């Protein structure tokens, strides 16, 4: 009972959005929600693929799931299987050792197979360049619809990028 009380008490704090970003999140989110409702019957399912990233972009993709950005309220959620995914959110650079796994993931994804390249490395290979081990940006291996630059892109930039993809493609 004591624990429940504490959960309840701290739980309320969670729901408060920080005021300085609330506006921004809401405006991006509302547009996103509208677009998702129109195109994907209310829910956009994303499969994230790390094709060779340093894990920096993954931290920010995690962050859009945190209670402050809470992307689920706009109908965005992440799935464990590419077979259920509307969109692949791919971080890079694509390593030689991940190339085949990335292609297979892409092949397993049903249409419309939206692909978003995340981060400077996902866009063009970044500081890792094109070498024996790094093939460069995501578009060297699979077709990309939208690029989100940044090292790593902020959660707001990620939400913007996802919105752009859903709106335009």
């Amino acid at each position, binding site marked *: 009972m004591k624990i429940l009380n504490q959960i309840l008490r701290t739980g309320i704090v969670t729901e408060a959005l920080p005021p300085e970003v609330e506006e921004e999140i809401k405006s991006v989110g509302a547009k996103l929600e509208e677009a998702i409702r129109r195109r994907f019957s209310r829910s956009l399912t994303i499969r994230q693929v*790390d094709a*060779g990233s340093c894990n920096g972009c*993954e931290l920010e993709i995690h*962050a859009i799931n945190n209670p402050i950005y809470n992307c689920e309220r706009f109908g965005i959620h992440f799935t464990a299987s590419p077979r259920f995914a509307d969109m692949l959110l791919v971080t890079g650079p694509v390593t*030689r050792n991940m190339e085949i796994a990335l292609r297979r993931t892409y092949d397993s994804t049903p249409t419309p197979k939206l692909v978003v390249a995340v981060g400077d490395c996902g866009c063009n290979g970044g*500081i890792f360049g094109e070498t024996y081990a790094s093939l460069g940006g995501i578009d060297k291996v699979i077709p990309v619809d939208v690029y989100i630059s940044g090292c790593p892109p902020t959660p707001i930039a990620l939400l913007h990028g996802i919105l752009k993809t859903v709106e335009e493609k």
Partner: protein
Amino acid sequence: MSILKNAIISALGADAVFDGNNYPASMDFCVVPRGKFVDAAKAMKKIHALLVAEWASDESQLGRGFGVFACYRWGAEYLIVKIELPYDDPIFASITNKFMPAYRFERQMKSLMGVVPVGHPDLRPWIKFEDWPEDAWPLRKSFDASKPMPRVKGEYKFVRAEGEGVYEIPVGPVHAGIIEPGHFRFQAVGEDILNLEERLGYVHKGIEKRFEALSWQEGSRLAGRVSGDTTVAHSLAYCMALESMTGCRVPERAQWLRALFLERERIANHLGDLGAICNDAAFAFMLYQMSRLKEIMLRTNHKLFGHRFMMDRIIPGGVSVDIGPDGRELILSELKKLLKEFNRLVVIYDENSSLEDRVRETGILIPDKARELCAVGIVARASGLNLDCRMQNPFPPYDRIGVNVPVLISGDVHARAWVRVEEVRESIRIIREIINALPSGPISAEAGIPSPDSSGFSAVEGWRGEIVYWLQAGPNSEINRGMVRDPSSVNWLGLEQAVLGNIVPDFPLCNKSFNQSYSGHDL
């Protein structure tokens, strides 16, 4: 005084030559005859030293063959033993029988440099996949890194277990969650794990080779992207190795700010991990609470330092961003709020009996095993090893502020979580002290360029544990070799041991409590 050096001298006598253009000068560095490599390892084992790293360098442009290096640690002391191999006969005796972590180091050296550890029990390639050409050794100078490699046919032989009721579960490289890629192969009977074999290398980006194409300045940006969650500690380790070679004196204020960044990185990652560990025990409440606290810290970072993870804020010679009185106020008020909420959450963690049931006595890495594997960081401290570079090799301000290092002996998921809890509290204390006594002065100095054929070493306690860099300058003072040893390079071995006898559904929980880096390991 110098225990490691004395042990080498008493074992090898005049065969060990202590000199070389190796920095920092306070650290011992010796060259021994090729045939004495194992003897040196034996001497180190005898005094209970730990193996920190083992690596090779192509020194053909410096007029030599290959250098093979083993770095040992005893308390605060580090010592590097080097042997030289002729270019046309690149073999040496394996030290895997003496030191467990050499098992992967040597496989990696053979795969990427083509130096052969004779007597190694398992010479399957590591990081180099089966479809690489056999003679592709990217770390050799003769290898053209700018060209893509052809794919060849090949097969990787996993360890097999057979018998009635034994079955195999392959997992990855693309995992179910938002995490890095790697492959795990389980052999299980019912729900019990008989064996786990890791297969890593999927995110091999050629980082070590990439260093050789960059300037010393650019190198710190690359180091900051070895493992994005540890960007501060990696760039710091790189910069400290470089600064030791150039004799650069980093201003005091810059050193204190570096420690500030390092501790903020530690807190943010520990908060994230604590939430994620609880989430893998189906206690999602904690994930959301902790990720909210983490987000508060990242926002402060962004506001004060212009980047949520403080990437590229540590540069050769110092730091690139200062903090004003307002920033100091902001951090103090942020920490006050954070600590209060954190403590409240820790009570919930502690009192939740169903959580306790999952995290206690799960995924145990016993202290003997941790020592044998030369584990570092959180994993080591949860298994009875009192290791922390901040305490043993302090740079200012740690020498003044001191660090209370939590050590637990149960080695289970709970211990690894609890070490994080204690470290968050300790880091908050350290940050407060830094803020209150931050010295004035410049925040950077000229880093300089190393002299030809010199090398520099550094060890920094990142949030996962000890990060080691070894940099070598070539004949024209360019980067000849950049060796990176992330804590994950040794701690991944610990996970394989810790899950044995546990049930398969507890693997994610065990894995999360280790939370090792794939990128930092694969390089």
